């Protein structure tokens, strides 16, 4: 008999989100909700996990876990799985989570729903039913695993963080795990240029893509964003190839997933990887000179035209209204 829904993310914000969803799944399965706390010197942080709903926290505190290596974290999590015998295991799909989940799943000889955007329990069969974007994010695949535990990775901000309750208490299980050393070492961690914006929190986003010819031209969009109180977003090439904007502006499958009240895509053609990051926006506006650009298919409103004409026109109209 499997006993729990277990969640893990090295990012405690994401772990809290998983606990929110995990509670619902645990109720449907009639099991406890457990969380794994893995690292070096992590003891004490279990309070965070209790506050967001964990009934049990498995703590693996080991000096070998001071650096996050997927190999050592896999060993630690495998030990927790052995003890907790979870029916369901949710792992936060941060980059570290995304590389650890498949390694762990393979060690456990198990399947894994990668990047689940929806999770529910088929109560009769006690199955975790996951939905995830598939085939270039053109379709949503509904799938389940034949193996136990039933594992899914969940992108950050897919589910709401539950209300915090500091009075909640739970059981702490200290896990003694042998962590074999891995022949790897971190030589250096180079900082990325970040402005510290949280694009996921933005209500309005104006986003730029390859339609912009040079970095200086982004000022146009900045001016528009300033007028309407929007945050600047961008597609992969702008952040990753050209580095015109720091990566915290990057919207897409490998960037950030956003759900603003309005997403305005300017000079963005709408590659599927980009669409996967913004398709849940309430209102989508597209401005592109190519009438066949895929972005128009997912847009509520659009103007087919050269952004170098449309954006200045938009700015001057808005300014005239504001007097």
């Amino acid at each position: 008999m499997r006993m729990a829904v277990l969640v893990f993310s090295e990012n405690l914000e994401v772990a809290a989100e998983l606990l929110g969803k995990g509670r619902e799944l645990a109720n449907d399965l009639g099991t406890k909700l457990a969380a794994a706390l893995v690292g070096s010197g992590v003891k004490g942080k279990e309070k965070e996990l209790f506050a967001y709903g964990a009934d049990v926290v498995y703590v693996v505190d080991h000096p070998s876990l001071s650096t996050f290596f997927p190999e050592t974290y896999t060993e630690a999590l495998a030990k927790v799985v052995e003890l907790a015998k979870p029916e369901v295991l949710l792992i936060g799909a941060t980059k570290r989570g995304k590389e650890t989940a498949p390694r762990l799943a393979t060690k456990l000889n198990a399947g894994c729903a990668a990047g689940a955007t929806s999770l529910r329990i088929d109560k009769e069969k006690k199955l975790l039913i996951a939905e995830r974007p598939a085939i270039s994010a053109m379709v949503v695949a509904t799938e389940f695993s034949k193996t136990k535990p039933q594992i899914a990775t969940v992108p950050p901000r897919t589910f709401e963080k539950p209300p915090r309750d500091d009075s909640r208490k739970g059981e702490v299980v200290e896990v003694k795990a042998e962590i074999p050393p891995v022949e790897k070492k971190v030589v250096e961690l180079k900082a990325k240029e970040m402005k510290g914006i949280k694009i996921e929190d933005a209500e309005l986003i104006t986003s730029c893509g390859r339609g912009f010819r040079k970095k200086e031209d982004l000022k146009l969009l900045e001016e528009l964003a300033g007028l309407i109180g929007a945050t600047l977003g961008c597609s992969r090439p702008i952040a990753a190839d050209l580095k015109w904007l720091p990566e915290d502006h990057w919207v897409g499958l490998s960037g950030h997933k956003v759900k603003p009240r309005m997403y305005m895509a300017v000079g963005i053609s709408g590659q599927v990887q980009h669409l996967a990051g913004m398709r849940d926006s309430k209102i989508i506006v597209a401005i592109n000179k190519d009438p066949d650009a895929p972005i128009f298919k997912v847009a509520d409103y659009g103007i087919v035209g050269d952004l170098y004409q449309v954006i200045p026109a938009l700015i001057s109209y808005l300014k005239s209204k504001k007097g």
Partner: protein
Amino acid sequence: MRVVVCIKQVFDPAELKVDPSTRLLVTDGVSRKISDFDKNAIEEAVRLKENQKAETFVITMGPADAMRALREALAMGIDNAYLLSDPAFDNSDTLATARVLAAAIRKIGNVDLVLTAEASMDGYSGMVGPRLAALLNLPQLTYVRKIVSVGDGKIVVERDLEEGYEVVEAKLPALVTVTKEINEPRFATLPKIMAASKKKVDTWGAAELGLSKEEVGLSGSAVQVMKAEAPVMGRKNIIFKEGELSQQVEELVKALVKEGVLKV
């Protein structure tokens, strides 16, 4: 040094369409191509061949048509190719796929470095690389944007993580997954394409790889897909075309005000 690149042939996303009545994907007549980031993995292997005299191999699991993807990799400069093809491999999930690739890498033997892309363009799960590393019991270095150095039984790479670029050293053999930013893949030249078309490419099936039917394909897969349908977008698709640009802009702003997302 022996380097194996694992690639995948995918439907060209630009040609994919959804049948609006069934919401199912239409794949008939859609051409297949090497998944974009796999070309970065191929390019990186070819550079290791040019700079370090590495012996390079490319493998792919897929139908007979996937031979074209292998020929393209050969034309880009890879030395040897193997097609992993067997009706028993059909409908393999990431676990079963990794088993097939792992068996082929063991059969190639004495491999120092396995290269894959960060993820494929279609599934985009990013799971096959780490699963393969687990099956082969190799250290994994994911999201690699730069190979800093390789030699003397070790590799140093720069990884692209949320919090920064992590420079990591690992012992070889190891598995590396590369990002799109690692390099600019070359185009194959006509003479190389001609030469690649004549190269002998063996096909390995389950029997050659020593795999049982229970380990591969649908029966070897842990994940079962119930359905795959296009999401209902429910978008308004209103394009402002009438009149001058100034009129279009005005209508757009009015619509956004009405939606309650803009205030003027």
